[in-house]
């Protein structure tokens, strides 16, 4: 009979050796795993929209798709609508007109929890390819008045995909028209001439300078907020758009709403109730920067 001490010691040694080996293996493979994850994400992004480069707008959630000629061709977003067995990891590509360019659903090995043999059929091309070219108006199941055929005996999973896409388009529509060019915030300008590299441009009208456009950042609630502003020579704001923000979804992200951004054209608005930190950050950021660049308005 083994003594208690030798039992404890052996078990302790085995556990110790196992943990040491595991921690070595982990630290050796972790960077590689992260890299392959990134490669997989990029491959997934390329499956839903044809583009060369993807720049994150909201980390791991929204990407801007840029083609080889440096033009923005659309956006891709990732959402997790509730399916039958769990959240469905879903990637959707949208072109600039709001048409779906493709969708990608993770396989069971990547975290899809729908019923094997039934719900998992949502990853098959027959189902997925129906979505190409659809818009917010017709991305429902046929029985719900849309144009998508549900999978037999997997209506819940099929409907979850439609709903996920619909909600995602509604939620992220404001990202679709981010300032693709500076005219977005200064519609009257004919041309722009750079005054400070990647930061400030003179806006030219018919014959002379009519204002400036600048890009600036301010500290929001969660992360930096990057924004672009157009100002006339008279100090009138012609437009404000958000280039990057990572505020709390459903709360701070309301600063992206069209109403709020448009209200800058009238006068500097008041903070939004419930999203005071984010909205104040943007308001003060705009105010400060307009003040700071007023010398260019002469």
């Amino acid at each position, binding site marked *: 009979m083994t003594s208690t001490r030798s039992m404890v010691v052996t078990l302790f040694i085995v556990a110790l050796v196992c943990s040491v080996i595991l921690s070595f293996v982990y630290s050796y*493979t972790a960077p590689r795993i992260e890299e392959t994850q990134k490669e997989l994400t990029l491959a997934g992004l390329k499956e839903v929209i044809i583009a060369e480069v993807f720049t994150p707008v909201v980390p791991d959630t929204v990407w801007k798709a840029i083609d080889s000629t440096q033009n923005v061709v659309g956006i891709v977003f990732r959402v997790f609508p509730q399916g039958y067995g769990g959240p469905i990891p879903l990637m959707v590509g949208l072109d600039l007109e709001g048409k779906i360019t493709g969708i990608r659903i993770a396989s069971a090995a990547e975290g899809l929890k729908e*019923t*094997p043999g039934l719900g998992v059929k949502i990853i098959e091309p027959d189902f997925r390819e129906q979505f190409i070219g659809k818009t917010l108006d017709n991305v429902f199941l046929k029985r719900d008045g849309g144009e998508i055929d549900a999978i037999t005996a997997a209506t819940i999973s099929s409907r979850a995909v439609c709903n996920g896409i619909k909600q995602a388009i509604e939620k992220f529509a404001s990202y679709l028209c981010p300032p693709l060019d500076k005219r977005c915030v200064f519609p009257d300008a004919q041309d722009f001439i750079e005054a400070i590299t990647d930061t400030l441009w003179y806006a030219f009208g018919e014959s002379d300078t009519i204002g400036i456009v600048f890009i600036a950042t301010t500290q929001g609630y969660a992360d930096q907020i990057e924004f672009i502003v157009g100002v006339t020579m008279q100090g009138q704001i012609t437009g404000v758009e958000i280039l990057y923000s990572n505020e709390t979804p459903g709360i701070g992200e309301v600063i992206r709403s069209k109403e709020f951004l448009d209200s800058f054209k009238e006068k500097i608005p008041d903070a939004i109730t419930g999203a005071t930190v984010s909205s104040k950050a943007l308001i003060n950021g705009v105010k400060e920067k307009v003040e700071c660049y007023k010398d260019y308005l002469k």
Partner: protein
Amino acid sequence: MKKSQIFTRGLIKENVVLVLMIGLCPALAVSGTVRDAFGMGLAATFVLFFSNIIISIMRKAIPNEVRIPIFILIISTFVTIIDYFMQAFQPSLYRALGVFVPLIVVNCMILGRAEAYASKNSVINSAFDGLGVGLGFTLALTVMGAIREILGNGTFLGMAILGQGFKNAPVIFMILPPGAFLVIGVMKALINKYVKKETQ
């Protein structure tokens, strides 16, 4: 016992799922399609082969009273290492088999072979045992998967072998959990008849 006997014994006569009735959880859960069943079977065979070898090598150093926690530590460490390496260097293989790895870590079949065989026998014999039992597991799962996929989905490895008409309206029941119980019950009954005849 001869090496070949150790190996073939695990295939049918002492089939881990249908005769010994262990490892039923993955057998029921991952036999919806042939592809999944075969993948699960191969992954389990691989782990079973090496875990049997490791346990057999260490069998003299493991005190009898604490053998079970030590088996669990060794097997789960081994499987987790495989998991990390597969994720890092074989992402496509991981996409196909990764989903089965968590099922293997806690599998009673692997622990069962360590306890019942590898901890008492030589390394070579344990390796043969692991291989035989693993392939028997693969065989049982693949047959179950074939029956369930053909009847429940109208396909075999994704091909519509019973015609498009059947594929559009298959016996969906077979692919759902109750179908797994039905198939495993019928297979168990058949194998009982066969094994009994053999021993008489």
